[in-house]
């Protein structure tokens, strides 16, 4: 079975540009979450979507937005890129809205975004 897939794997953008990152969850998973992992740090929660509705938002500016499609895939959009947005962006899926011991998150390999 395919795991969580993310595209692209690597991306280089210039300050001020816009970027769209894509994620396909594990088949049957209806919840998708996005995390930002800056080099040397643990991942930080950005968004969670469940059944196409936003269920949670971390402490990120409005330049960050996301959506979930009817097939449960998801996009993360970042506008007006800053150098500090350079990071590994991880997508994760789970069966239920609330991740727990019986519905843990499964992560993709991430998209490495470099802003120059």
């Amino acid at each position, binding site marked *: 079975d395919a795991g969580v897939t993310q595209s692209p794997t690597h991306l280089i953008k210039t300050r001020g540009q816009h970027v769209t990152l894509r994620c396909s969850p594990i088949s049957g998973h209806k919840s998708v979450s996005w995390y930002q992992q800056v080099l040397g740090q*643990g991942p930080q929660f950005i968004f969670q979507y469940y059944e196409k509705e936003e269920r949670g938002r971390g402490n990120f500016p409005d330049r960050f937005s996301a959506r979930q499609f009817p097939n449960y895939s998801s996009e993360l959009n970042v506008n007006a890129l800053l150098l500090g947005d350079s990071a590994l962006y991880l997508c994760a899926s789970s069966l239920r809205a609330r991740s727990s011991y019986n519905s843990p998150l499964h992560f993709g390999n991430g998209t490495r975004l470099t802003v120059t």
Partner: protein
Amino acid sequence: AQSVTQLDSHVSVSEGTPVLLRCNYSSSYSPSLFWYVQHPNKGLQLLLKYTSAATLVKGINGFEAEFKKSETSFHLTKPSAHMSDAAEYFCVVNSGGGADGLTFGKGTHLIIQP
């Protein structure tokens, strides 16, 4: 509110010796606890997860973790380290509040000496 503290940023052990990665948590609710591992340029892989059924949790690749409520700890152990265990390890808590965001520790870099 929830938080996780990984007490060591780096741990170095010799191959074949025991591994101990320490984690303390803080949670307003009864938490779900996890350990994830991240190999270089890879995503996060679930090592093990705490269930309320048992305080000693067995995971993949010979790893175990013990939940101690009185000490608010969830330390990760392995009896004998292997070279392939070299990676970044994250202790994770989810108190299941509103946003369902997991809270990650800052990570422990495990180095295996030959």
